């Protein structure tokens, strides 16, 4: 705003600069000055021409037109004629107030061209209002913004096309000197167009002063002019009506419709439909009535679940309870230390000798409030309270007493020097052979427990197994990378002979096509009972066989070695003295293998799965998933339809092979890893041994019909082996033909459990 005014001021400066040149009357008031100033006429001056006087309409100058533009004569003529007629129309008026008329007086002359008299008006001096482009610029550079030349040494061009040079301007020192020397410097301003300082005139200073004091810049402006009453006041009243229409009735008659509306309300009030003001007294007191007068039980609304009632107080809440209810000091302390929410009861039992001594209960309102919070903030659940005897949850199983015989106690003990790792019972159930960690093999009688013979090898015995054939008698011992077949002493002559001919035949069977990597060597002399009659040397670095298992016919036996990355399963045929490995490679580390008792199936237990292969068709039949982390042992029921799998993760799974590849039952009762499981060949029993030093005996009855589930009844927990180095009972075997059990313990004893 200030900038705009300063711009104007500069314009005015220009004007005032011009004035002395052209007219030399600087003392004139600004307004008059502007009027007279024919040179300066731009639109800014319009605003300053604010005296309110209507400017006369600028008249066209026909003469000038005719002078300059002679080629459009006809138009001018037409105009002329119009103008000629105009004063005629208003002739009387102009004559009345001749000097009032804004139009200048014309002169009548005879036209040179037409010869007719013609009115000629004096030439109009171009005024502010006149749109004249001929006004002169003091700088002669044209109406060009000065800032275009800001970067140039000149400030424009004169009419001859010469550069108009910028006036020399002093530096800051000159400016300062001029302020010192010339007292009028501070009232001068920079004229941009001229490029020099110009002193302000007295009028301009006056305007500045007025602007500074927030007054109207025009000194002549009178804000308190007397009003001129043009149409009011005495003698100026309009006496005649503007319209001659008669006055409408509604001006003086009361409204019919209003009356109807009011009457409607009045009637409604009279009839009581509208209450002008509510009755005050009756609403205060609540009105009660028989709200249940018509109880309709067939209400569609489902009744809400009623809130549970508060718990009724018990003896301990009494003001005078029996002394056994009073808390001891430590109970009090414990109660005070527990959080309010965790307390079992929200009060401490207290005793007062008399009713008058009972104080107020300080938590009364809090408890009421808590109850209300429960009522509206707590979700309500209908919880079924199990009102059953917990004992009824235990499954009802036949009593173990009715399922006798089964092993009950440990009757015999055979001592070894180190932990007994494996045990096997002869097919007639009379002899047992055990192998220990120091390479000793002990043959002893089951019923007596007396060692009959002792063999010594130079490596730990990892597995021992009797051949199930009845016509020959020998057992296979496994130690590192070797298998030895040993004939027990004191055999009858025909059996001994048959065994000898089987294991060490005089003429070796024709070893056909495939030469095997397993080396079979027989002790042909057969003189010494201390030496194994047959030895099998497995390929080097195949590891020690951890299991030896016979086919039920006794011709084949399989071994599982535990060396990683090698062929771990070998099947050896005694009659042909031939060994083969049925699997090129096996997924997962093989833990145990088993021949199916009836079919030509072969079961392989890897770390997590049990796979069943058909040996004849040479294909995988099914994969069982026990869901264990690490299988330790498997055994199959003599019927061939059921399988038990024991694991190092303490679980025992019972599989019904006909039913599913998921376990029928998973039992977890041992506290440590299961080491061995075994089905009794004839009795409905099975047992599992574990590292917790216990052997569990189960009754396992399997039915022939498909519909009945097998019955598993836990019978007895046999404890007697000590746990040494975290190992308990490493192996168990049933004696065929009797419900007896032999066990190999890590404590260096082998036990016999009689019924």
């Amino acid at each position, binding site marked *: 705003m200030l900038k705009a005014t300063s711009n104007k001021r500069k314009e005015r400066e220009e004007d005032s600069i011009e004035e002395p040149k052209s007219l030399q009357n600087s003392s004139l008031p600004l307004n008059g000055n502007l009027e007279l100033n024919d040179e300066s006429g731009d639109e800014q001056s319009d605003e300053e021409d604010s005296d309110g006087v209507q400017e006369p309409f600028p008249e066209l100058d026909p003469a000038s037109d005719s002078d300059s533009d002679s080629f459009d004569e006809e138009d001018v003529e037409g105009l002329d004629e119009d103008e000629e007629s105009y004063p005629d129309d208003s002739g009387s008026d102009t004559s009345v107030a001749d000097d009032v008329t804004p139009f200048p007086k014309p002169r009548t002359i005879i036209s040179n061209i037409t010869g007719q008299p013609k009115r000629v008006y004096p030439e109009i001096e171009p005024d502010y209002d006149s749109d004249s482009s001929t006004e002169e610029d003091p700088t002669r550079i044209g109406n060009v913004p000065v800032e275009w030349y800001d970067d140039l040494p000149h400030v424009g061009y004169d009419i001859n096309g010469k550069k108009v040079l910028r006036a020399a301007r002093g530096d800051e020192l000159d400016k300062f000197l001029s302020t010192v020397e010339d007292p009028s410097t501070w009232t001068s301003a920079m004229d941009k167009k001229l490029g020099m300082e110009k002193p302000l005139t007295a009028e301009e200073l006056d305007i500045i002063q007025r602007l500074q004091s927030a007054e109207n810049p025009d000194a002549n402006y009178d804000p308190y002019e007397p009003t001129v009453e043009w149409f009011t006041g005495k003698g100026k009243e309009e006496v005649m009506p503007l319209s001659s229409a008669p006055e409408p009735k509604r001006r003086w008659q009361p409204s019919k419709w209003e009356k109807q509306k009011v009457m409607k309300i009045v009637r409604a009030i009279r009839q009581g439909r509208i209450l002008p003001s509510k009755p005050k007294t009756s609403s205060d007191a609540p009105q*009660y009535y028989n709200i249940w007068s018509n109880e309709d039980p067939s209400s569609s609304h489902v009744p809400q679940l*009623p809130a549970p009632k508060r718990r009724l*107080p018990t003896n301990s809440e009494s003001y*005078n*309870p029996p002394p056994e209810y009073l808390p001891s000091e430590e109970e009090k302390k414990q109660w005070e230390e527990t959080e309010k929410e965790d307390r079992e009861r929200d009060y401490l039992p207290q005793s007062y000798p*008399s009713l008058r001594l009972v104080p107020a209960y300080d938590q009364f309102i809090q408890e009421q409030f808590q109850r209300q919070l429960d009522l509206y903030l707590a979700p309500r659940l209908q919880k079924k309270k*199990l009102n059953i005897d*917990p004992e009824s949850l235990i499954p009802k199983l036949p009593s173990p007493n009715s399922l006798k015989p089964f092993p009950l106690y440990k009757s015999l003990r055979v001592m070894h020097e180190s932990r007994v790792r494996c045990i096997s019972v002869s097919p007639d159930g009379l002899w047992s052979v055990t192998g220990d960690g120091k390479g000793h093999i002990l043959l002893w009688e089951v019923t007596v427990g007396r060692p009959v013979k002792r063999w010594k090898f130079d490596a730990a015995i990892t597995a021992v197994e009797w051949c199930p054939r009845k016509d020959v008698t020998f057992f296979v011992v496994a130690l590192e990378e070797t298998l030895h077949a040993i004939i027990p002493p004191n055999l009858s002559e025909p059996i001994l002979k048959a065994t000898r001919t089987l294991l060490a035949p005089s003429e070796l069977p024709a070893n056909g096509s495939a030469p095997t990597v397993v080396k079979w060597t027989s002790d042909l002399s057969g003189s010494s009972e201390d030496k194994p009659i047959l030895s099998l040397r497995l390929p080097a670095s195949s590891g020690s066989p951890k299991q030896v298992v016979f086919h039920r016919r006794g011709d084949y036996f399989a071994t599982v070695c535990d060396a990683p990355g090698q062929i771990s399963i070998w099947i050896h045929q005694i009659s042909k003295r031939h060994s083969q490995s049925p699997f090129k490679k096996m997924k997962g580390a093989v833990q145990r293998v088993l021949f199916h008792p009836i079919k030509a199936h072969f079961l392989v237990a890897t770390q997590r799965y049990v796979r069943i292969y058909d040996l004849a068709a040479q294909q995988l039949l099914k994969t069982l998933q026990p869901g264990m982390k690490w299988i330790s042992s498997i055994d199959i029921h003599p019927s061939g339809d059921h399988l038990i799998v024991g694991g190092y993760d303490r679980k025992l799974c019972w599989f019904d092979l006909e039913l599913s590849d998921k376990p029928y039952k998973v*039992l977890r009762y041992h506290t440590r890893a299961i080491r061995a499981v075994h089905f009794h060949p004839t009795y409905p029993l099975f047992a599992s041994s574990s590292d917790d030093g216990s052997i569990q005996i189960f009754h396992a009855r399997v039915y022939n019909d498909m519909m009945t589930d097998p019955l598993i009844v836990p019978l007895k927990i046999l404890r007697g082996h000590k746990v040494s180095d975290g190992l308990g009972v490493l192996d168990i075997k049933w004696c065929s033909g009797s419900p007896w059990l032999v066990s190999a313990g890590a404590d260096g004893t082998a036990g016999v459990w009689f019924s």
Partner: protein
Amino acid sequence: MAKIKRRGESGAAKAYVTRSAAIKKLQCSLADFRRLCILKGIFPREPRSRKKANKGSSAPTSFYYAKDIAYLAHEPVLKKLREHKAFAKKLARALGRGEWSSAKSLDEQKPVYRLDHIIKERYPTFTDAVRDIDDALCMIFLFATLPSNPRIPPTLISNCARLAAEWQLYVMRSQSLRKVFLSIKGVYYQAEVMDQTVTWLVPYMFTQTIPTDVDVRVMLTFLELYQTLLGFVFFKLYTDIGLVYPPPLDIKKDEEAAGVGAFNLNEIPQPDALQSNPGPNVDANGKKISSKDVRQTIKSINADASAPSAGTKSTALEAEAPSTEETFVPQPSKNATGLETVDLPTLQSIASLPQTTNTSLFSPFVFFLSRETPRPLFEFIVRSFGGRIGWPASSGAGSPISEDDESITHVIIDRPVVPKAGETETQALLRLKRKYVQPQWVVDCINAQKILPEELYGQGKTLPPHLSPFGEQRGAYEPLLNGEGGDGNAAEAEGSEVDEDEEMAEDEETAPILKEATVADPALLRAAEIAAEAAGVDAETFSKETKKAQKRSRTSEKTVGLEGEENMNKMMMSNKKRQLYERMKHGERKRAAEVSLSHQR
């Protein structure tokens, strides 16, 4: 093709809404929502899966049934609450502009909601309502004694006090009080109204102040609902027994602190009874009673109240209370009319047989309260059981009996014995005639349903323990109830309990002495008996206990033999059942530990 199921469009996601969603839907403030929930009885629900209900988020929120909220959306009270919001704005504007007259007229048109329809909705039958008045009574009795403050106006307090008095009057009139328990929190009462047991708790007479951690708004909203509920329930209860509701209040008496006596119980004037009985004004205090009224009451009570028990305890009481003959008792005096009516069992008496409570337990007695005993408590109890009671003027006006009345049989006193120096002869005579008992005697008599010997509860004596009439939880420790004062009846009851216990085969319930008694050796048994006698157990109970103990030991032997087998069978349980079993066993062990701890003390 089947319609594609989208997430969050069916099932739990649709059936539940969170609280904030509910508020958004109802377009009300949280405070209004709370108020609505309290009034309508809507509470949050626990969805089976919070994640499913909350569209996959597991943020902790409370859920409501979407149907409950939809049901709230049509609630007239909600509409009124919205109107009230608008009204509050208008009023605030008028006040802010200083337009007092318009503010006044606005205030006169203030929207007020009524809760009648909510009462009817929430309690479709009267029985439902009676079943749910426990909390209402607790609140009413609490607020009846609270001091008023700017948030709790005195009108509210007085209304609560009126409702409390009306309830007490009804219970006294209908003689439906059953059990009373003096606890450390307050006095628990249990009444039987419309076959529903109603239990309420009344704080002791001390000034309570509302603590700062309690939201008074919530309490007041509940109170609003409870006042309406109780109003309607009392109306029905009163009109059903032919009384005018609300009973008119005698303001003069009320100002003299007459308590419940300030109310007049007026019978509803019946058209036929009008001529014969122009003004049947039965004063609740039993003061101005004509003989006709007495006869009428006797008749009515014989008809509806419990049949008087057939002379089991009457003879002794008769001998005690001949003096009460001359002053009429508003309750049935069995000694006068009961014996005749009992001979012929009516249908009603047979119907009321199982309910063995004796509501006219104190009818032969006249009590006088000592100054230090709480009058409202004992006035209510004694009159509920048919007794008459008086109190000194310091406990309030309106006592029907003065202290030197000849008829007073018992004085309830709660102060130590102080030898009285200046006692006149008549006073001493009166003292000898009266029995001075401690307050607990009254309550124990009610709970025991018979008059207990007063000597145990005499003035200044150490009281026997006060036990809860509501019993203990199942399997919890039960203190021996008989004590020294038990007679044959109690012993019998004890015996039956013992039998039950035997069946339950609970372990370790006997004292250590009895453990010795399990030994079969007769010499040892004899020694144990002597020891038990020395300990204060009489011979009969001892023999019973020994039998019990022997039986138990036999059973326990049996269980020991089977223990291994049972443990074995446990391994055949499924995981789920095993966990359940373990939990139940844990609870059992915990309870047994508590019981054994109590026994050791």
